[in-house]
């Protein structure tokens, strides 16, 4: 157990040191969620006047939940990029030789992804509050919202880690990124599910991210819905991707 924690601490320190000291990593992680938030909440606020749009706390809060969940998932994906980079540079090979318990490697990357996301989430939340976002939910609701995002962050990290461990190249970036992007954007991003029309309504209805998004919007508006279902889905995603990541680690070990 001590070995696992020691490895995890070393890995996460290294990742976080690189993240916080290199603007090339820090800035895109911060910039993309802010772009999305600005473009959607600022540029599309008129969408709240579409007949049938009845989100109580306004369009800024409506979009904030999406951006929060998107930043959580993508903090995990960006961590996967770093793992792939570590494979290409040869660092991972040395790390695997040196680590007495390799599960600590997964733990370390997951912890660093969590800290990365918390940093981004703090900035996005501050910007949203500066933009006078209305919050209808209480402390418990907001705690549930951020916990849900945190679980999605973990699921995203485990997914990207599994891919990086199997493909071991930075060229795998689209494989990590695209499915996450599609899942997020095939959910009700701009309007509630009821207002979606055509094929995207069908896709969004079966998309596992949709309940997470709807639950998150319920939390921020103070009218929770689908809370249990969303946490169950998040737990399921984590369990599945944990298995995927561990098998990926074994695959990387076997590849030498």
């Amino acid at each position, binding site marked *: 157990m001590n070995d696992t924690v020691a490895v995890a601490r070393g890995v996460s320190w290294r990742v976080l040191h690189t993240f916080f000291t290199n603007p090339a990593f820090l800035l895109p992680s911060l910039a993309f969620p802010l772009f999305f938030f*600005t473009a959607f909440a600022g540029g599309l*606020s*008129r969408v709240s006047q*579409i007949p049938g749009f009845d989100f109580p706390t306004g369009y800024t809060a409506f979009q904030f939940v999406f951006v929060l969940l998107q930043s959580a998932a993508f903090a995990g994906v960006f961590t996967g990029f770093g793992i792939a980079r570590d494979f290409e540079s040869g660092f991972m090979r040395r790390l695997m030789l040196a680590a007495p318990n390799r599960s600590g490697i997964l733990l370390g990357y997951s912890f660093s992804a969590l800290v990365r996301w918390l940093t981004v989430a703090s900035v996005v939340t501050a910007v949203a509050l500066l933009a006078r976002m209305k919050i209808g939910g209480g402390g418990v609701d907001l705690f549930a919202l951020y916990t849900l995002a945190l679980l999605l962050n973990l699921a995203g990290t485990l997914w990207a880690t599994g891919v990086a461990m199997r493909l071991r190249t930075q060229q795998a970036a689209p494989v990590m990124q695209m499915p996450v992007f599609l899942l997020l954007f095939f959910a*009700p991003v701009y309007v509630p599910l009821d207002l*979606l029309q*055509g094929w995207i309504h069908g896709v969004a209805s079966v998309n596992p991210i949709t309940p997470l998004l709807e639950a998150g919007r319920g939390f921020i508006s103070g009218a929770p819905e689908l809370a249990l279902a969303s946490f169950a889905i998040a737990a399921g995603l984590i369990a599945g991707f944990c298995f995927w990541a561990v098998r990926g680690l074994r695959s990387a070990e076997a590849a030498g």
Partner: protein
Amino acid sequence: MSPSLVQAATLGRRAIVRTARQPANVIFPLIFPMLLLAVNAGGLRSATRLPGFPTDSFLAFALAVPFVQGALLATINANVEFARDIQTGFLNRLALTPVRGIVLLVGQLGGLITIAVVQGVFYLVVALAFGVRLASGVGGAVMLLLLEVAIALGFAALGSWAALRTGSTEAVQGLFPVFFVFLFLSSMNMPRNLIQTDWFRWVATINPVSYLIEAVRSLVIEGWNGEALGLGFAAAGGLSLFGFALATHALWRRLERT
């Protein structure tokens, strides 16, 4: 044919072949803008019910975005390769040959523009297949491709400047989010007169990317709108001239250093 033209054609062909040999550089700029178009057209379809929205098809409204976004993606990919030429010393070796600097730049831009036109045709075919009809007709399709060339030239000139100035693939890749800021803070998802947030509408108004998008959009949903086209070509031309001047200066400095 003059030697300069032959040299430019050779370098342009090299840029195209090099891109074609990297499937990720071909497929991503084709597929990603189409995916984003599908997502936006599906998700924002109900926005066409807003009073004053200029069309009842959000797909037609949003079709302009892939044209600009595709030009951006092609520019980034091509100029990353251009920066790699600098990093690997190809440009230095070329400087020892009789090839003139300006020919090098024209060849590089020519290759990229060819790729952008192929992308433009692809986007147009997909849109037509999904039921979009150009209000400006067949002539509008030709004008759309000309506009795509102008847009690609504008971004490409700026990208070439970044490649020549820094000589770093990472630095050129770092332009990606910078260019995307301009795309996101434009009228890409909503007509400017319907943007509710004052500061956003102001930013979108001074953002040249809004005029590029609106020029393409006018051909799709309005027909022949001289003002929109004029502003679009002016914005693209301005970017091209500005970028080309910077790139020429950077090329001169780089060749001088070698």
